[in-house]
């Protein structure tokens, strides 16, 4: 199945129009084999629509899509793909183990149900009916279901939306475990810390358009050293900022750098310039700040997507 030249996922200029709305407006992205790819965006931005196109649930209006070198939705591609939908319901009248067995038979694959249930931390509840599961347990079972048949590529659409902080940690461990095994993971999320910690690469979508894409490090961390010098007057401040390659605002000099060995030198330079030093700090820009920078200035309710459009209301 795997071809060495093809990426795990490649799509270019994908558009999806619903009757009156545009859910995706020319999305292009590539996901390498073995990477954990984070797909970020505000609610209603088009994250789930793209995943549904990549899993063959939804037909695109335009554009090219290749998943594992083939067309999404075809039997041969589906055989190597796992999927945890954002909104799902499993039959309440099955046990967790029976559900995994059912999916194993659908996938024509041998399934070690005990190992899967243990992996997601619900081994003790495997023989109970799903109707008795909590929302969080159902989400863990959903994750196990997505891993049935040992897929090469797994799509997880908001896999931790129903989980408490400990549950999220568990899922993160599972994701890291999958990455170690070489599985490609496409993670839809609006939980930024989650993406920040496990994803190699990230794309940010807003109103159907990719607004940023790249390595998580590049996109998210713009580290800087901040030195609070207080009000030293605008002219000395401007000179100091110029000498250090810094910006000055509200009594704080901000020097973008990834090399924190220079901190003592920076402080010496400030002191040598006769400026007081009240506080020195290292700042890493969080994904949240990057995210706000990218999409935050836009109106909260995108006018292009009316109330009827599918939208993720489940929030953390």
């Amino acid at each position, binding site marked *: 199945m795997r071809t060495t030249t093809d990426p795990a996922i490649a799509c270019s200029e994908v558009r999806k129009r619903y009757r009156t709305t545009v859910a995706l407006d020319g999305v292009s992205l590539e996901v390498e084999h073995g990477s954990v790819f984070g797909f970020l965006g505000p609610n209603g931005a088009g994250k789930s629509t793209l995943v*549904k196109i990549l*899993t*063959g*649930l*939804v*037909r*695109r209006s335009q554009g090219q899509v290749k998943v594992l070198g*083939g*067309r999404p*939705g*075809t*039997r*041969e591609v*589906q*055989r190597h*793909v796992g*999927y*945890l*939908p954002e*909104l*799902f*319901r*499993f*039959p309440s*009248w*099955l046990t967790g183990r029976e559900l995994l067995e*059912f*999916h194993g*038979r*659908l*996938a*024509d694959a041998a399934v070690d149900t005990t190992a899967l249930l243990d992996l997601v931390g619900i081994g003790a509840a495997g023989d109970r009916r799903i109707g008795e599961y909590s929302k969080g347990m159902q989400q863990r079972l*959903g994750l196990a*279901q997505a891993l049935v048949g040992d897929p090469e590529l797994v799509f997880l659409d908001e896999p931790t939306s129903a989980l408490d902080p400990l549950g999220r940690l568990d899922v993160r461990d599972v994701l890291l475990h999958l990455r170690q095994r070489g599985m490609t993971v496409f993670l839809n999320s609006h939980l930024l810390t989650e993406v920040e910690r496990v994803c190699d690469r990230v794309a940010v979508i807003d109103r159907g358009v990719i607004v940023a894409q790249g390595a998580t490090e590049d996109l998210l961390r713009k580290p800087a050293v901040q030195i609070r010098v207080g009000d030293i007057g605008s002219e000395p401040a401007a000179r100091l900022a110029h000498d250090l390659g810094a910006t000055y605002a509200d009594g704080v000099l901000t020097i973008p750098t990834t090399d924190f060995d220079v901190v003592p030198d920076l402080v010496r330079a400030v002191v040598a310039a006769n400026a007081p030093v009240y506080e020195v700090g290292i700042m890493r820009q969080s994904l949240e700040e990057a995210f706000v920078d990218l999409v935050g200035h836009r109106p909260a309710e995108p006018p292009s997507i009316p109330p009827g459009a599918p939208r993720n209301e489940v929030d953390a």
Partner: protein
Amino acid sequence: MNGSVRNRAGEDGGAASTPTVWARRRAGQVALIAGHTWKEGLRRRIIVVGFLLTAAFVALYGIGVYYAFRDIASMMGDPQAGGTSVGALSIDQNMIRDLAAYQTLSFGLFIAGFLSAMLVVFLASGMISGDAENGTLQTIVTRPVARVQILLGRYLGYATIYLAYLVLLSGSLLLLTRVFSGYAPPSPIQAVLLLAMEGLIILALVSLGSAVLSPVATGVLVLMAYGLAFIGGVVQQIGMFLSNNTAERIGAAVHYLIPSDAFFRMALSGLAPPNSILPEFAGGPFGSPSAATIGQVLFGAAYLVACLGAAAYLFERRDI
């Protein structure tokens, strides 16, 4: 996607080496989904509740038939109690008994057909749209299973539940009538088979409806269609009785549009006393039989297949 969803089966590559293996695997997945449907019916106690209430209905029917024919027998004079009868009169007595038994049966089978159709509609009206809306379909469709297999598996599961129900119910009614009235209809098995077609057509309509409509809309649509077909039959019957061609043609047209009721009436023809001197309407509103024709049966079968084909096409193209 613009036509690119076609040709799924061709992509199996080395996974299915021979046509036999290929066919067996496909059939296996259809059977798996049909079995899943049975398990749902059993675990959610739909089947148990349906069968228990139906047993109550059958018991009531039996009590009614028992008393009705005991009284008819006593009114006509019990031959064993010494009341001798002339040959011609006893034939008439049997004729009255047969007609009464037929009317009872036709009413009973109308209810049987109606209850089975209700069962089918309530069980199956969510089979595509409903499951897509509530999120149970997404993880199944994304497995290496064609959507048409899911549709066929669901259809097969509901159809076998329906057939088991119908055979038990109509068989009980036939047996009770036979035991308490002594009337032996000419072709009861053919009648049950034709009646079964009625529900299978209803189920195909449900499949088609649920490919595009919500469960409630599907249920309303199919029950309305069922009622319309029945009224069409009544109109046809009136037309035949009054020799009104227009009414008869309208009724016949409705039977082509929705052939469910036509099968009910063909089923009745296997239950009606042969050589009856009574006119067609004698069976009352539930019971006007019309002779089964190969053409009608083939049309019904083609209609069923067309409904399923359209459902498969719409399901295939549907966003889930």
